[in-house]
């Protein structure tokens, strides 16, 4: 194996192998990433940097390695989305209302990573409470995509809500990062930053300690530079957890072991409803290429139908705000979080603390959610949406009678400009048109970099799997990765900024 010349160019798996073979120390690796994070402040990818903690963890890892008891992710520096509670380290969820919140406990997913030996570089920026598709709703300012169009200096969004994690991975500021995905918040930013992101099956990762947005949709997952890295990281994020009754007790396979098994004989479904109106030709062509790539490697292509696809987004925009309005009721300015000054009574305290603490998009969704759950409207909206979800899940169950995975575009287009889509909420919501069905049905989905647009911006393809069959997704994603040969990297313009 020839290793990259720069430590920050290592993939997670390469770094693991180098650290375990004592070719590189965790301290050297961590020092390089701490510097990369500091140098990349113009991207605004981090809300909180934790360089001292990172070096402390790295030194402890080097001691373990020296003593021959290294764990699977020993000494590997990661970035953590600021939605995961980290004990003693500020966790904001991208919101003013949690601007000074220091959790007294650790999320199960991040604890699993520390137990596997990983090192924390810091907490990444995100859309407020994970509500957004461009990272522009963060109280801490937008994140900029490391990618820019050819011959352009215009700042582009990194997608959202896990925009900071996506930018940190794409810009080589960490080996890998955690994300969360409620409607596409891992896969959409991964696709527009040329990185890999998987939303596992609902229940695969514990939600304990992840600030809740929409509890029946939220799932944590890895964001990485390669498919192998995603397989490796998910293995160590996933677990059944007594603290999350929806986490599922199904053994987590060694995804890396079957990664190179190939797609010979795999039945790949192509859902015709994903050929949406006004689909840009570049997306259509990329999808076709993906089909050819898999076919050339021995997969069998099957046409399938998911007739309720067009109802997925509107269904989502009832279910998610409804659950969000319930979950966000806890922010009252009393026990933690922002409190308005000079309240005249308790209701005034609640109303003003929440109005000052929540941003515009979050307030809009709380109002939608409150409305659709309110007396007289529950059946017309929420109950109907939950029935639509059953129909959407049935579509998939039916399709999986004739195929093993589905191949679709990941996003309707490449990264767009900062401020370009903030005026119309519905236009922004349409970014998740290909990803949201997967959350509603609880299924796993992975975004893989597959090509560049004519002006040099990354595009991704999405593979959707059967429940708890992430292993097949990784195999198929690896086949696309091999065929696409995606090696492009953004120019590091932020170093001169």
């Amino acid at each position, binding site marked *: 194996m020839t290793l990259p010349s720069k430590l920050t160019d290592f993939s997670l798996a390469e770094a693991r192998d180098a650290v375990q073979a004592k070719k590189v120390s965790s301290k050297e690796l961590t020092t390089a990433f701490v510097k990369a994070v500091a140098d990349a402040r113009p991207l605004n990818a981090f809300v909180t940097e934790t360089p001292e903690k990172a070096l402390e963890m790295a030194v402890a890892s080097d001691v373990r390695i020296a003593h021959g008891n290294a764990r699977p992710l020993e000494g590997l520096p990661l970035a953590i989305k600021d939605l995961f509670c980290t004990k003693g380290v500020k966790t904001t969820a991208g919101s003013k209302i949690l601007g000074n919140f*220091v959790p*007294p406990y650790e999320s199960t997913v991040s604890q699993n990573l520390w137990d596997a030996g990983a090192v924390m570089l810091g907490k990444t920026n995100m859309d407020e409470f994970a509500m957004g598709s461009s990272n522009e709703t963060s109280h801490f300012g937008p994140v900029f995509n490391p990618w820019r169009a050819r011959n352009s200096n215009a700042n582009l969004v990194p997608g959202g809500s896990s925009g900071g994690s996506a930018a940190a991975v794409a810009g080589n500021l960490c080996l890998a990062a955690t994300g969360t995905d409620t409607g596409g918040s891992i896969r959409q930013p991964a696709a527009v930053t040329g990185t890999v992101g998987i939303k596992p*099956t609902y*229940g695969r990762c514990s939600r304990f300690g992840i600030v809740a947005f929409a509890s*029946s949709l939220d799932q944590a997952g890895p964001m990485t530079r390669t498919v192998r890295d995603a397989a490796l990281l998910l293995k160590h994020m996933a677990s059944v957890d*007594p603290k999350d*009754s*929806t986490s*599922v007790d199904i053994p987590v396979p060694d995804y890396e072991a079957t990664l190179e098994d190939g797609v010979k004989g795999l039945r790949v479904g192509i859902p015709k409803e994903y050929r949406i109106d006004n689909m840009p030709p570049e997306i259509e062509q990329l999808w076709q290429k993906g089909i050819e790539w898999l076919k050339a490697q021995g997969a069998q292509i099957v046409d399938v139908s998911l007739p*309720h696809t*067009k*109802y997925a987004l*509107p*269904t989502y*925009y*009832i279910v998610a705000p409804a659950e969000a*309005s319930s979950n966000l009721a806890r922010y009252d*300015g*009393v*026990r933690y*979080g*922002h*409190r308005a000054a000079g*309240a005249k*009574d*308790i*209701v*005034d*305290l*609640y*109303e003003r603390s*929440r*109005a000052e603490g*929540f941003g515009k998009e979050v*307030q809009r969704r*709380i*109002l*939608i*959610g*409150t*409305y659709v759950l*309110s007396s007289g409207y529950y059946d*017309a*909206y929420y*109950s*109907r*949406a*939950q*029935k*639509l979800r*059953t*129909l959407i*899940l049935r579509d998939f169950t039916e399709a999986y009678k004739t195929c093993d995975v589905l191949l679709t575009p990941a996003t309707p287009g490449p990264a767009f400009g900062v401020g370009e889509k903030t005026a*119309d*909420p*519905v236009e922004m919501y349409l970014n998740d048109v290909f990803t949201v069905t997967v959350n*509603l*049905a*609880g*299924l796993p989905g992975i975004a893989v970099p597959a090509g560049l647009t004519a002006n040099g911006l990354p595009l991704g393809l999405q593979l959707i799997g059967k429940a708890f069959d992430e292993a097949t997704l990784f195999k198929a994603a690896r086949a696309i990765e091999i065929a696409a040969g995606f090696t492009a990297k953004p120019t590091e313009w932020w170093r001169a900024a």
Partner: protein
Amino acid sequence: MTVGKDDVRKIAKLARLALDESRVEPMVGELNGIFQWVEQLNEVDVAGVPPLTSVVEQRLKMRDDVVTDGDAANALMANAPSGEDHFFVVPKVVE
């Protein structure tokens, strides 16, 4: 279905969100835009379709009804905007 200014004021009250009067009108427009778009769900016949209550087929797990954690008053109070002797301090509630 369309919402008006009074509906917006009412749901803001229910949601315990102080909504400045100047924001009521724009919010009416934004919410109606979203609700209009959501209207398309009415095209679907959902008669006899059960609501999805769990995406993964499993019975909700039960655990023993015993104390698993606690005695963490200091940790619980650490983030309180205002507190005294392990009590949260709020404006007077009862007149």
